[in-house]
């Protein structure tokens, strides 16, 4: 645990020192949210969940998406940088597996993204009168979802280890999640397929929680889905790490 927390601390300190990265994230996510709210995206959520406050429902899904985006895009870029800088060697001989060390980076990324989400939420409240949603069940669903999405981030990081350049893949995936996970209104036939992703399940749960229709079985489903994603991500990362070690990919970036 100390290793994970120390990794998180190191990464947060670096993020603060590279301020521009945080500011550009804030600008990007704010501009995107403003665009969705101005263009009245998400009106169908009002009908689906039986409430007139569809903007809050959209905002909730958007926050879940920003956290998930951070979760899947933490490990791969970090590893790419570390292998080039040489700091990867420090971690390869650490006391705990790398999948857990990078959990520290995930925590740091989620902390930063949470600050951005709070800023966006406060701004949306004052401009569009969206509701503040601070509920333990919603927060718990967001946490479980992001841990599951971290598992998907580990799968991408595994590809990164072996194939070295997957930046565009991550970008396409992040953008794709926006349209297929019901973050923006998505057809039922697509969400039935993407319900293997924690984000799709989370989006449904946090909206239903707000309208009082969330069932316990759905929470359990999210928990299992996230656990499976994490376990698969852990295993895939391990397999690709071994393949990269065998081929010597970690030495030739």
């Amino acid at each position, binding site marked *: 645990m100390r*290793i994970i927390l*120390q990794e998180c601390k190191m990464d947060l300190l670096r993020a603060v*020192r590279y301020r521009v990265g945080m500011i550009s994230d804030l600008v990007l996510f704010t501009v995107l949210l403003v665009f969705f709210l101005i263009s009245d995206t998400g009106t169908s959520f009002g009908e689906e969940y039986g409430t007139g406050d569809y903007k809050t429902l959209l905002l909730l899904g958007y926050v879940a998406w920003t956290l998930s985006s951070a979760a899947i895009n933490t490990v791969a870029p970090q590893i790419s940088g570390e292998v*080039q800088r040489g*700091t990867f*060697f*420090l971690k390869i*001989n650490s006391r705990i597996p790398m999948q857990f060390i990078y959990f520290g980076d995930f925590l740091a990324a989620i902390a930063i993204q949470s600050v951005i989400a709070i800023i966006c939420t406060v701004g949306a409240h004052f401009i569009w009168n969206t509701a503040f949603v601070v509920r333990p069940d919603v927060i718990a669903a967001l946490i479980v979802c992001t841990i599951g999405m971290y598992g998907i981030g580990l799968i991408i990081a595994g590809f990164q280890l072996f194939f070295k350049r997957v930046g565009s893949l991550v970008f396409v995936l992040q953008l794709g999640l926006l349209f297929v996970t019901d973050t923006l209104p998505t057809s039922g036939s697509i969400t039935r397929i993407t319900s293997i992703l924690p984000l799709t399940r989370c989006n449904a749960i946090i909206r239903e929680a707000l309208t009082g229709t969330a069932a316990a079985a759905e929470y359990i489903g999210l928990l299992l889905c996230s656990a499976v994603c994490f376990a698969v991500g852990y295993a895939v990362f391990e397999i690709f790490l071994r393949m990269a070690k065998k081929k*010597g990919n970690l*030495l030739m970036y």
Partner: protein
Amino acid sequence: MVQVNQLSKSFNSVRILNGVSLKAPCGEVTTIAGPNGIGKTTMLNVICGILYPDAGEVKFGEGESYRDIFTVLSGDRNLYAKNTVKENVQFAAVLRGLRRDEIQKNIEKYLPYFPLYEALENKLYEKLSFGQKRLITIFAAAVSGAKIILMDEPTEGLDLEHKKQLADIMGALKKDAAVILTTHDYEFSVNVSDHILFLKDGSIVSENGKLGREEFLKLYHGFYEGGDL
């Protein structure tokens, strides 16, 4: 202790290591010497576990494993540029499971060999000179309590004074660890090493995997004069 048995590794059908064996016990500095491209760094990479061999094995002493290794790479790319020296040194030790009091104890233990640490501890790693970065990385290795320390070209970029300092440091490091280094700096290797292994054509050119200092110098000069080994 590190014991390497019959290690072989090829890249794109070019054989880099060909049945190399060596033993590097705790309390000694073992140098792997040889010209560029001969496989010295590949050897360290296999020992530290970032590269799997095609054949052969790496064994460690009782209670030791890959997790007891600290690798000091060549160049200045070992620690985090945007973190301070202190943060980096502590992080390297935490990765090896040390507690805060153990880290402080190790810092105090090795501080006499690294007098520059106190002046640099609050500086960002990126602000240090090349030579300072090398020494601070070795300090991080020492403080981490690693039982096996691998160093790739540790004298690279160091002036004479820092090299002398590094030679003293080697003496302190080997008390608690097996130190394996690669180098082109033959004077340095002769000064600090208990064993010098000469690598040529993917194999150790020495009897029983060991080489005496005088013998090495003879070998080195013979090698560079084009003499047959």
